[in-house]
């Protein structure tokens, strides 16, 4: 049963009567000891009942049950698991930006610290169990062991592992968070009801860039795609976004060089781009951050570079500082001794989502938490200027997408003027009418 909306007056009245009792008992008001007899509250509620509102009061009386059980004398213990598959990073040309070893995990740890601070006032204790499985290790066995401890798991691994874990019988009533895979299929046909996504999909990232192009009136794109699987998937997402926002894709070229571009870019890139039809932006799909960085300023025509280099759509970046983000950045830097990245942000958002659900429902019961997270009342302040919520049709966390360079935020998608009948954030990625995800039912 999900709790009634907080803004209903009936709730206020009830919460008033409960809280006054708490005050008389001189307990701190939230979270500690609520040994108020169920009967007493229900009497208090029923005493105020009038015939015309009887039905409503009955539902509230049921909610009483929840209020009492929701604030047990014993504190609530919430255990969250973080399971990662070790994936060696692909070899790239540049040595400048090594991937941090604790990517993702550090975000979860910060989310835990944030939850713990709130929990301290409420008697909610949070713990994070971390486990990393080797490249050839048995991830399903690890997942089973973790699921026996906690039904709240963050998963940092490729798509196949994600789906195998989501399909485990032990995971049936779990809430799993995909924090690292941007695959569009996971939000479409391959979606799972027990799998939420806090990392933006490639479609959301590509749509953000497309909105930017429309907004700037730079409608002609030339696309360069690397050969790796992720590059091809991102390129496909970019093509779909170009169609969705009526941009013109003048040409798509595959990047096939195997030379060291640190030495050869000045000679090769002008030739490579010379035969491209006229375009406004050169979009590059290079998810491994391999060659894209060597393209800018080497092109035949002077054109801005975007996609995997230049102007980049991200979930998070060190340059995001508006909307209170500076505080999140500094908390993260203090904890991890580096800057926060997209996967860190996704892991942080997942842990914080659990924290918000526990705070508001005062339970550790996973089905209730899932219902709350997917319900209308859920909102997460995610330092991006507006509340973050989950899409009920595929479990994707709605979020603004910063379009960033190495040094600054250029724009925040959705851009001004992209309207939507329900939520402008749904102009990014898979919207309800086009969703092919069936696992979430008709929500």
């Amino acid at each position, binding site marked *: 049963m999900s709790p009634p909306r*907080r*803004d209903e007056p009936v709730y*206020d009245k009830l*919460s*008033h009567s*409960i*809280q*006054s009792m708490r*005050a008389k008992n001189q307990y*701190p*008001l*939230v*979270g500690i000891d609520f040994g108020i007899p169920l009967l007493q509250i229900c009497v208090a509620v029923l005493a105020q009942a009038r015939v015309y509102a009887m039905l409503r009061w009955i539902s509230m009386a049921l909610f009483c049950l929840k209020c009492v059980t929701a604030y047990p004398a014993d504190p609530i213990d919430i255990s969250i698991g973080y399971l990662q598959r070790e994936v060696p990073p692909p070899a790239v040309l540049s040595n400048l930006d090594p991937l941090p070893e604790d990517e993702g995990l550090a975000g979860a740890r910060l989310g835990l610290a*944030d939850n713990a*601070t*709130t929990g*301290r*006032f*409420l008697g909610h204790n949070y713990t994070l169990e971390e486990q990393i499985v080797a490249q050839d290790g048995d991830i399903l066995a690890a997942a089973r062991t973790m699921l026996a401890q906690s039904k709240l798991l963050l998963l940092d691994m490729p798509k196949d592992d994600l789906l195998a874990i989501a399909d485990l019988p032990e995971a049936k009533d779990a809430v799993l968070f995909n924090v690292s895979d941007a695959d569009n299929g996971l939000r479409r046909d391959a979606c799972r009801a027990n799998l939420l996504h806090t990392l933006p999909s490639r479609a959301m990232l590509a749509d953000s860039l497309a909105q930017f192009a429309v907004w700037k009136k730079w409608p002609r794109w030339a696309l360069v795609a690397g050969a790796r699987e992720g590059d091809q998937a991102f390129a496909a997402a970019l093509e779909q976004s170009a169609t969705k926002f009526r941009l013109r894709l003048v040409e798509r070229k595959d990047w096939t060089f195997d030379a060291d571009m640190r030495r050869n870019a000045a000679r090769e890139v002008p030739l490579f781009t010379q035969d491209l039809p006229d375009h406004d932006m050169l979009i590059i799909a290079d998810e491994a951050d391999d060659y894209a960085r060597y393209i800018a300023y080497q092109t035949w025509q002077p054109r801005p570079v975007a996609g995997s280099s230049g102007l980049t759509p991200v979930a998070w970046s060190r340059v995001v500082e508006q909307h*209170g983000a500076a*505080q999140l950045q*500094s*908390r993260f830097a203090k904890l991890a001794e580096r800057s926060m990245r997209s996967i860190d942000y996704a892991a942080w958002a997942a842990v914080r989502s659990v924290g918000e659900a526990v*705070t*508001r429902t005062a339970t550790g019961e996973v089905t209730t938490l899932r219902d709350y997270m997917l319900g209308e009342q859920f*909102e*997460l*302040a995610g330092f991006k*200027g*507006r*509340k973050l919520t989950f899409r009920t049709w595929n479990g994707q966390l709605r979020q603004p997408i910063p379009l960033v360079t190495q040094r600054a935020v250029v724009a925040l998608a959705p851009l001004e003027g992209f309207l939507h009948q329900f*939520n*402008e954030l749904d102009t990014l990625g898979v919207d309800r009418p086009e969703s092919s995800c069936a696992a979430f039912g008709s929500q």
Partner: protein
Amino acid sequence: MLKSALASLLLTGATLSHAFAGEIWVSNEKDDTISVIDEATLEVVRTIEVGERPRGITFANDHSVLFLCASDSDSVQVIDPETGKVLHDLPSGEDPEQFILHPDGKRLYIANEDDAITTVVDVESRSVIAQIDVGIEPEGMAVSQDGKYVITTSETTNMAHWIDTASEQIVANTLVDQRPRHAEFTPDGKELWVSAEIGGTITVFDVESKAEIAKIPFEIQGVHRDRVQPVGFEMTTDGKFVFVALGPSNHVAVVDMKTKKVIDNVLVGRRVWHMAFNADESLLFTTNGLSGDVTVIDAATQKPIKTIKVGRFPWGAAYRPTN
């Protein structure tokens, strides 16, 4: 009637220095300055260089000195309002963002945004009396008229923490919606109002029971609900109106304090943040962060009457009588 007549006189440029003798001090977060606006001419008459990232700004109860949170200097600066000179710093804890001066004029309660702490400083002995653990990113600060409670709101923990000023201990924690930014007690001392920026609401608590008694939503036509974000607000001392800055929706809502209904919305500059009244509460000055200006609202007619350019990212505002 009189107020609107005065306002129209102001519009025609008449000087009324005998009636309006005061200044509005505005902290410019991204300029490390304070802009001083003369109440009579509605012009910036002084720009004062201060510490880094000035935000919270308030005068001593007798207006003899100004207290200013210089967040990135990790200090609260005490400034002589006549000369604009920094007299000394107060120990403030790290990253002070906002503060409230207790009615005793002695205790300054400071929200240390990066440290999840509220620091209590004795402004006379310049020493730290207490540090109180609060939620993450403390920001909004309020004190009850009788001085019994100080409130700290924490942006990420989403709570109003009730600090008993006799013991300097938290006695209650009440949940509000996402990202609480500002808190105020009503003039009769019976209610506490807390704004939640991302939640888009103001939650009203009964002070005695500390129970939630109302939740006020906001709406601006043509702006998505999620972009209507209540932040700073001010109450009129007659207990009638609350003026609420709605951040990126670029409006100030006028709320009836009794019925808790929004009765009007006033268009102001971009990302309106905090505000201050003049002495007789006839004029309200709002800080508009993104447009870098201050909107002057005629409180009687609830119409904007002037926009005044100040520094970059004006944050807080405080009034000082000069006669």
